[in-house]
Structures are given as C-alpha cells and as structure tokens.
C-alpha cells in the first residue's frame, strides 16, 4: 500500500465548516443545583434534536445489521409477523369460537402494537449499557441513545404495518373517518416510547437486574392485557373488568386499536391515556435530570 502523506491544503475539514460554532465555549461544571441540572438536561435534549441525521443513520444501520447477509433482509420483520398473525389468528379464532373475519384484523393490530411495546421496553432497558463504548469514547447527548431505540422500532413498526394493511384488505375493512384519532394517539405513543426508554435505560444502566425483571413483567402484562383476547370475549365471566379498568396498557392500546376497528371507544380511555403519559413524562424527566451526569459512570 502506498504511503500517501496528507496534503494539509486539501484535506482540511474543520469543525467550523461542520456547522459548529467553535467560538462558543463548552463549560462543564459539576451539577450541584437543580437549576444547573435542568439546564444541562434541556441542552442534552436540544443536542439530540440537532443530531437527528446521525440518529436516523444509526437506526437504519441497526436494522440493516440485524439482517445483513440474509436473503430477505428486513422483510423478515414483515414475514415473521405475517406468519405469527396468520397462525395464531386461525388457531385462536377456533379456540375462542370467534369469527376469523372479525378476529384476524383485531389480532393483527394488537400483535403489531404489542411487538412495539415489548421491543421498546426490552431495548430501552439496555439503551445506555449497550452504547457503552460510544458513551465512553466521545461527548454525546445521552438522550440520543434512547431516541435511537425509539426510531429503530418505529422502522420495525413500519415493516409490520404492511401485515395490518394486507389483513384489512383481505377482509375488506375500511377504517371510517372517525379513525383519524389515531394521529394524536401516535403522538402520545411517541412521547411514551421516548419517556419509557429513557427511564428504563437509566435504571438498566444503574441496576443490572432491571432488564430481566422488565422482561418478566412485560411477559405477564402481555397475557393480562387484552391483546390476544378482546374484553368482550370474557365479559360473561366477569374477569375482564379487573384486567381492563386499571391497566395502562389497555387504554393506550385501545386508543390506537378501537378507532381503526370501528369499535366505540370508552370516553375514559383517552383521559386515562393522557394521565398515564403525563405521569410517565414527569417521572422520566425527574429521573433523567437527576441521573444524567452519572450515566457515563454507570455504563
């Protein structure tokens, strides 16, 4: 290999060209007051926003990497969801004595949404500990790592949406005008996803027992929440009220699923969803503001 000495005149890419203001000094002080901590936490989020092209590329590469060398690539995501929905749909529609035409659309939305929820919680737990070598190599906003998990799973969700669309097309279901409420529901989900991966990521970095605990909790939540079954199926047994009324997952899933299937939405579903989101954002914000300076020491 030829030794090519760099030509200093030609190869200059300076940081100032790179859109950073080199004149602005960075002052990193020990955060001792709440005011200081809040300021640095907000700066962290702003920096993450500025770096969105990086987050985008990281997320795309994450998915590409998972399927590098496979024949179908990321379409395995679509295919495996389709197989799952098809198999479980036919099996459970018999077990529950349900009409396939009604059950399959319900199941496709439920499974795809739950796939997103369980991926966010599982990957959120390790969002900092898995990016350890990045965190310890350069100064980077920490909320970037949580954002990366969310964006990556939105891409996965995008692949899985195909399954829902195909199922809806097969059974000739056209969502009514009333289903436009999924748009604010998506916004709420986005906020929740960010807040939960930030929160779980911090706890997961500090306490290494968190990921398996969250894994088991989510496994139980999957069976307790009306994902595979709808509350109407078990209404006659009086079971569903307990599992539905105080289940945050149910309200959040319902504001997405109900309008798309044309089911009437309980009025409190939105109220509870917004309430849960508010609590989650407050908790996650509090923990992030408090723990952010320590994350680099924990990973």
């Amino acid at each position, binding site marked *: 290999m030829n030794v090519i000495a*760099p030509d*200093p005149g030609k*190869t200059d890419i300076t940081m100032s060209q790179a859109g*950073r203001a080199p004149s602005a000094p960075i*002052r*990193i002080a020990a955060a001792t007051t709440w005011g200081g901590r809040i300021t640095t936490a907000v700066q962290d989020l702003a920096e993450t926003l500025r770096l969105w092209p990086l987050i985008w590329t990281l997320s795309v*590469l994450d998915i590409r990497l998972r399927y590098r060398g496979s024949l179908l690539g990321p379409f395995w995501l679509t295919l495996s969801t389709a197989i799952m929905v098809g198999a479980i749909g036919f099996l459970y529609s018999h077990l529950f004595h349900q009409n396939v035409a009604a059950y399959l659309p319900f199941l496709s939305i439920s499974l795809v949404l739950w796939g997103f929820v369980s991926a966010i919680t599982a990957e959120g737990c390790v969002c900092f500990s898995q990016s350890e*070598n990045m*965190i310890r190599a350069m100064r980077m906003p920490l909320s970037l790592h949580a954002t990366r998990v969310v964006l990556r799973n939105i891409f996965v969700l995008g692949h899985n949406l195909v399954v829902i669309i195909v199922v809806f097309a097969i059974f000739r279901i056209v969502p009514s005008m009333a289903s436009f409420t999924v748009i604010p529901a998506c916004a709420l989900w986005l906020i929740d996803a960010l807040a939960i991966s930030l929160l779980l990521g911090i706890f997961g970095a500090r306490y290494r027992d968190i990921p398996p605990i969250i894994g088991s909790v989510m496994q139980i939540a999957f069976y307790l929440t009306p994902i595979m079954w709808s509350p109407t199926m078990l209404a006659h047994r009086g079971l569903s009220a307990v599992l539905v009324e105080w289940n945050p997952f149910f309200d959040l899933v319902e504001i997405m699923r109900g309008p798309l299937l044309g089911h009437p939405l309980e009025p409190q579903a939105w109220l509870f969803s917004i309430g849960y989101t508010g609590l989650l954002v407050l908790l996650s914000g509090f923990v992030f503001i408090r723990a952010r300076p320590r994350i*680099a020491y924990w990973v």
Partner: protein
Amino acid sequence: MANILIDQLSISFPLYHGESRSLKKTVFAAASGRLGEDRSHRLVVQALRDISFTLNRGDRLGLIGSNGAGKTTLLRAMAGIYEPTAGTVTLNGAVTALLDPGQGMNLELTGRENIRLRGLYSGLADTQIKQLQSDVADFAGLGHFLELPVKTYSSGMIVRLGFALATAIKPQILLMDEWILAGDASFLDKARHRLETMVRGAEVLVLSSHSADIIMQWCNRVIWMDNGEVRADGPPLDILEAYLPPEQFAAAKAAAARMAA
C-alpha cells in the same frame, strides 16, 4: 482561540457493584488511601482530586504517571465524557478525543459506515462526508478493507482507522491516550507528520503516555499525575528527569534525539 481551563476539578467513581462493602473498604483503604465516602455515604474512589491548570494555544501537554494515577480519567473529563463531581472544565474550541482505538466505532459495521457515522456526529453535509471517507481511506491505507466490518481488522488497522478518522476532521483540541503507539513504525511517522501539521496550526494537544521519548518529541509541557493529583507541572525534560530513574531518562533522551535527527 483554543484553550482549556480546568478549575478545581474532582472526580470520584461510585463503587456499586461490590457485595461486601465493609471488606472492600478495608482492603482498598489499606491499599491506596484514596477511598472515601460521599455525602450520602456511598463508597467512592477519588480518581481526580482538586486539579487546576490552563492550556493555551500551542500547548502540547504530556501526561505521565503510573497506572491508575488518573491520566485517562483526566482525558475523559477534558473530553466532556465524565461530568465533574466538583469543579469545572471549560473548553474553547472543537475537541476530538482519541481515548481508545475502537473510539465508539461499531465493530459490526464496515469502515466506510463508521466514517459516515463520525461525519454525521460532527454535523458534516453529504459532500463533506464523501471527502472525509476518501481522506480517511487515503491516510489509513486500508484499501478494500474499508468495505469490510471493522471486526475483521487487525488491531493495527483499527488504530490507523481511528487515528485517521479523528484527525481528518481538524480538531482545535486533540486529546490522545497512549494506544496510538500500537501502530507500526511507518505509520507512527505518518501520524507524527500529521500531528505536527495540526500542532503547527497552534492547536492544543494533550497526550497521555508511558513512553518518555514520545513525550520529549511531541510535548512542550508535562504534568505528572500521582494518585489523582498533579504532582508536578513544567517543561518535559525537568519533569521527566524527576519522574524517571536516571538510566531510563538518559536512554529516552538519546532515543528522542535519534528520532529528531
């Protein structure tokens, strides 16, 4: 103007993962006397204690000290990775830190993809990223390996890629740990040439190294770290003479003179 101000910087690491605190406490306390408790009675290791100094344009600082003296922690604090437990670090100018050869690279991704990520991290536009890729490819001399995952590289190749990457985007402040010495001799020459071009542009260099002759060649100021504190600060020859045993100092001096000739 690029400079670094370090003011009463202290850093302590929490020790969380120990099971038997009291046992650990006794052992460590006997060993180093650097163990303490913070306000909420957590066991901490004081990695850096009350460090203050200023680096100005053109300063090439060498950090010396035994293993565990706090050199790498100080570099990480200067890079803004570890936030101080007390005190402040003020950085005027764009910083690049070469702390470990992997440098946050994803080993599963190809060299080219890693370069692209670094470009995006620095906020470069697409055309600049292309330029960055060709510049790094030229300098690191990796040829077709650039299209292969980084995990297939030899450690020397990773060093070359990391160094080329970190210095292709001209930083105003460059922080380097000693791993750069892992390169082969011809690469070291190239690296030195490139660093000298950078330092001639009156930037700030901080280099942590165990190799006295490298420090003599590259640095014009040396800080001797000991037990998380600054033990001495001054011109390289004076500090190294105090730090090294006489015969090693003479050997390093001769080696440096040979390299410079």
